[in-house]
């Protein structure tokens, strides 16, 4: 009997405590920049596709919901021919972002992805690619990689010597 009354009293007191509920969508929770929500593919500073189709995100994904095919343009720059994320499977763990060597795939603080039709949760590259560098501005993988893919010539990257002249044997 006593505990019953006590419970009622506590419940009553809650009427006067601070409200946790907010009036979504008019009002929104502040999300931190590293909050793991909607996944996007970003672009490099030159607005080229950042993803190089290395398949690491797909391999890291614990639910295997990323699927892509790498291809190359005439210059030898590799990019994904298609890139698909099945968000009805994604658990927003962020492993893909962690695995990505190019900062291409990023999780953004946005969770408003609900759909009435589950099929609409399958995102293709066109749905994922944004016109921004996302959280990591200034990085272009092809500038630091060794390959020549039309971004910089052989030996023209950061911390690279010009290509060797193989006909000289001087030390």
């Amino acid at each position, binding site marked *: 009997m006593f505990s019953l009354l006590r419970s009622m009293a506590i419940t009553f007191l809650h009427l006067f405590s601070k409200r946790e509920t907010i009036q979504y969508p008019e009002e929104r929770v502040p999300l931190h920049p590293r909050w793991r929500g909607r996944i996007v593919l970003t672009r490099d500073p030159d607005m080229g596709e950042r993803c190089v189709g290395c398949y690491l995100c797909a391999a890291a994904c614990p639910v295997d919901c990323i699927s892509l095919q790498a291809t190359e343009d005439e210059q030898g720059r590799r990019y994904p021919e298609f890139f*698909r994320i099945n968000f009805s499977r994604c658990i927003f763990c962020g492993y893909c972002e962690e695995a990505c*060597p190019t900062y291409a795939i990023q999780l953004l603080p946005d969770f408003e992805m609900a759909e009435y039709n589950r099929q609409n949760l399958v995102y293709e590259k066109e749905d994922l690619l944004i016109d921004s560098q996302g959280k990591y501005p200034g990085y272009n993988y092809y500038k630091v990689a060794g390959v020549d893919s039309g971004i910089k010539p052989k030996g023209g990257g950061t911390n690279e010597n010009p290509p060797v002249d193989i006909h000289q044997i001087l030390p």
Partner: protein
Amino acid sequence: MAQIHIDKESYDVKNGKNLLETCLSLGYQLPYFCWHPALNSVGACRQCAIKVFKDEKDTRGRIVMACVEPVSDGLHLSVADPEASAFRSQNIEWLMTNHPHDCAVCDEGGSCHLQDMTVMTGHAYRRFQYPKRTHHNQYLGPLVHHEMNRCIQCYRCVRFYKDYAGGKDLDVFAAHDHVYFGRAKEGILESEFSGNLAEVCPTGVFTDKTLHTHYTRKWDLTMAPSVCQHCSLGCNIIAGERYGSLRSITNRYHEAVNGYFLCDRGRYGYEFVNHPSRIQHPNVRGRQVSGKELYTTLQDLLTSKNWIGVGSPRASLEANFALRKLVGDQNFYQGVSKVEADLLQRILHMTHSGQIHQPSLQEIEQADLVLILGEDPTHSAPRMALSIRQAVRNIPLQQTASTHIPAWHDVAQREYIQDTKGPLYIAYPVASKLDELASYTLHDHPDVLAAFGFDLAQAIGDDPLGDQNEPTLLRNIAEALLKAERPLIVTGTSLISHNILEAAWAIAMALKHQNKNASLSFILPSCNSAGLAYMEAEPLEVLMKSAKQNGISGAIVLENDLYRHYDALELDQFFESLEDIIVLDHLEQPTTAQATVTLPAATFAETSGTLVNNEGRVQSFYQVYMPKNEDIRPSWQWLTELYQIKIGLTPDLLYPSTPLLEELAASLPQFAGIGAHAPTFGLNGQKIPREPHRYSGRTAMLAHIAVSEPRPDQDELSPFSFTMEGSRGFPPPPLTPYYWSPGWNSNQALNKYQIEVGGALAGRHAEVNLFAMASTIPYPTKKGGVNQSQSVIQNATTHTFELLPITHIFGSEELSGYGDAISKLAPAPYFAINKQEASRLSLQPGVDIHLRIGKQTYPLTVQIGQELPAGCAAIPYNIPPLTGITWPAQGTLIPTTP
């Protein structure tokens, strides 16, 4: 046996090995780069450092390279020693100072030995702050991709390409940390084994260029053990698929067959599987038909006519047998010409007599004398040429036995023997690549070659003191053959000559009579030529005759382009005389163009089957993936369904394939025991997964079609599953779909599958060899009597030439020839004659001519082949448009009006 102590553990190990292979065989994780089990040691990379101690009490020890240190009794060594591990990790750090930041775009990634070794040594962060050296790349042709920045200077590539495979055009340039591995000038790599560079190079410098066009990581491939379909040797391969297309072929180790290497036809020939002209749907008289309608049509057809079946030397035993069962054994024919069938019948009789041993490729590598009669293995059985290249080193290598040079010390051995070579004799109409190694070559008409063989047999049989009248050359070769301990004779069907086969047999028998056990290796036309020949059916000539006589109105052609075996005009007429022709094949080709009904047949990657190779070895290839289009079905399944339709049953889709083999063994006694050749596998009912455990994208790859994942394809027939679930142990070798072991993602995980590194695979059970079931009916030895004057066109005044079919590695084999990369390398159709003949007819090399063969005319380009005999012309064998010829053939030049 020696006892060694590694980190205080004692082991009994084999003498005569180096410490690296010994440690690896014992399961130690010791990183290495330059050592390769087939290429042995050079000590170039300094990666395999360990510490050896003077004795038990020595605590200081000294760091040595394990790959150049022999096993010795009572040796104390340490792999785990902190100084040795630090050395290994620093060494990798040094190698990595110039390494590009490329893994994400590097095709080696995920199967990279350098990645594996770097992780193994624990080097994780780059401390070197200075600029990296860079290199330009070269265009190396359609097969191999070059990205020189990734090189760690281990020298494996040139050691394989130049020293092992005899290539001339890949070398080391420049000096010190600038060394460059490439060609003097950009251009197509000349070696037929260049594709192995992708597997030999421990980094991503050399990678598979065809894989590059549809790149997939190793962990994403669905893989199955398979057998190469592009020549009669039956090299073991791993075939990998992704998104419904075949992506790559890599080597599957077989200690007795291909070892560590494949030829380029085998590695790149797979592209036909993804070809745009694959037949996708059943087609009846130009209309795509399916489902019930197809069945009623087929039922009508099957019950209303007399059918004959035409088998194929490139289809599996199962498919051929299913056809034989459908049409009845009287109505089953080999889809090859009479000459080819005869040649094979002779070979089977020879092998079945049990008189002469048929060597495996590994035994060929051990031969100390090689005589090639009427074959150019580089083109007709390429992997064998690689074995022969090793065999010629055996005699010089024997000399190193008296020195202290250990067998694994590659540099020292090569220094010691320099360019000396063991005996190799080659008799072939035109110059061949192996000629450079030969002690004697004979280029002439096949009958002259055969006559040479018979003379040689005679010389061997003679009194060893010798007939003084005999030419000394013949005498010398005969003596060398008699002196050799493991002489090997290579012959085959390429020149389509009975005499050549008989001559080779005569030599082997002559040696046998002198108590020498020679081995005799036959090169056959196709991957299952032996299997088809074993079915003992009649050839095309008989088929056409009996079709006319017996009022046959329909033919079922199995996976065969008959125009590659027989005269085009006669075939046209034959097809015209039939009311209905059902053709089952993978691609649109001239025979399917004649068909009234085409049925899409699954390729080797889409179904399982069994082949018999040139040494009688029975091997199975396993289905890699389910064709995405349900209309594409295995031929054996189509034919079994047709059989069921014919006898009035409802077609049962899941007709198992093993009973077909067992049925075959039951109905043809020569196949007895064949059903037992494939190991069965079941660990608590678990299957072997075709997909590695890190396979990605399962829940997304089909999500664009429907978000609910479909049930994975089920495989009732094989020991494999189409998923990543199942037993993760070490399956028996014929059932190993890929090599992987913790920490070993590259193909070098193979070490873990071998009983001893570089040796046999663990768990192999006895294989079935059809040739071994000898019938003991001796094969008669002919004594020669080749009448040269009759067969060689002596009259060098006409425009008519006897044609010699010259087999080419790229183009002569049908299926590989459809591939993009290989078709680029196939020679343009040529007409080769010697200079005298050319000037007689005032033909310049490079001139286009027209040649009439039978009733057909072919446009060809003149080439000079100086070694060709007068009256003979060489043309490439079965390279389009040079098909539709019945061999042996003659050709007449047609004057062209300019």
